[in-house]
């Protein structure tokens, strides 16, 4: 029996965001946008979904006079990400 893949992570953009955040302390919105190549609207929606699930924290603030949104992965998010990668590896191993 294969473990079920987390549907929240099994989407291209959300998975890319989680992969970036897993390797850094925190990243701001413009960095995530540049790295993923997503539009602001789409990225905002996906960040909201990850935040609602408790996988990331989203802090809105200001840097000087400019608004700044900073995202960071939570322990629950890291755990889910780790389980997702393990599940993927099991799928691939079984497929060989």
């Amino acid at each position, binding site marked *: 029996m294969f473990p079920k893949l987390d549907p929240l992570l099994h989407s291209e953009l959300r998975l890319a965001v989680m992969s970036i955040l897993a390797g850094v302390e925190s990243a*701001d919105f413009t960095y995530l946008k540049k790295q993923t190549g997503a539009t602001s609207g789409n990225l905002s929606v996906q960040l909201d979904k990850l935040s609602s699930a408790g996988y990331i924290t989203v802090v809105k603030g200001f840097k000087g006079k400019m608004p700044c949104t900073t995202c960071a992965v939570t322990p629950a998010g890291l755990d889910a990400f780790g389980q997702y990668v393990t599940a993927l590896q099991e799928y691939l191993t079984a497929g060989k």
Partner: protein
Amino acid sequence: MEQNKELSARESLALINETLNNSRQEITRRSGKYLLLWGILLTVFSLLVFVLWKATGKPYWNFLWFVMPVIGFIAAAFLNKKETVEMPDNAVSRILAGIWRTFGVFAVSVALFTIIYSRANVNPLGTVASVVNLTPMILLLFGMAETVSGVAVRNRAITVAGFLTGVGGLIVCYLLGSMGEADGMLLFTFAGVILAATGLIVKRK
């Protein structure tokens, strides 16, 4: 990456690998820019102190070293401001920043100690202070910082260069007996070139 399409297991793993690697490389490359900046400053200042010291015979030109961090921090702030997207920190960039900040604090502390006690000529216990040679100490600290940086970015060339600068520089100092002399500044020029090369290697990684 506009589509929120579902991926196969293989595609998902490939995406994770690619995203993680791209992000890691970009952040590490940024660290290289600052190493390059400090390498160039070290090369320029060591040559400047060497030339002025040699020409006038006065070691007071060594006080120019205290100008270097001021210029360095202003230039680093300028480079940082030029970035259109703020880069996050990852493990490697944090380690590199920590190593070189620690080196800076140690180097400045040792330099201040040497200046104060060399001038006083006696230490607080009342015994006569022996002359403290700064050049081999700074070279050793520099070599250690460089070697650990090489280990952090997993680059053998940087690791070996750090060892050569630290231990090799120390040996050259003792063999030539040029500690505290103008010629010793050229060892810092070598260290500066090595640091700038490290920055270039990290930037291109």
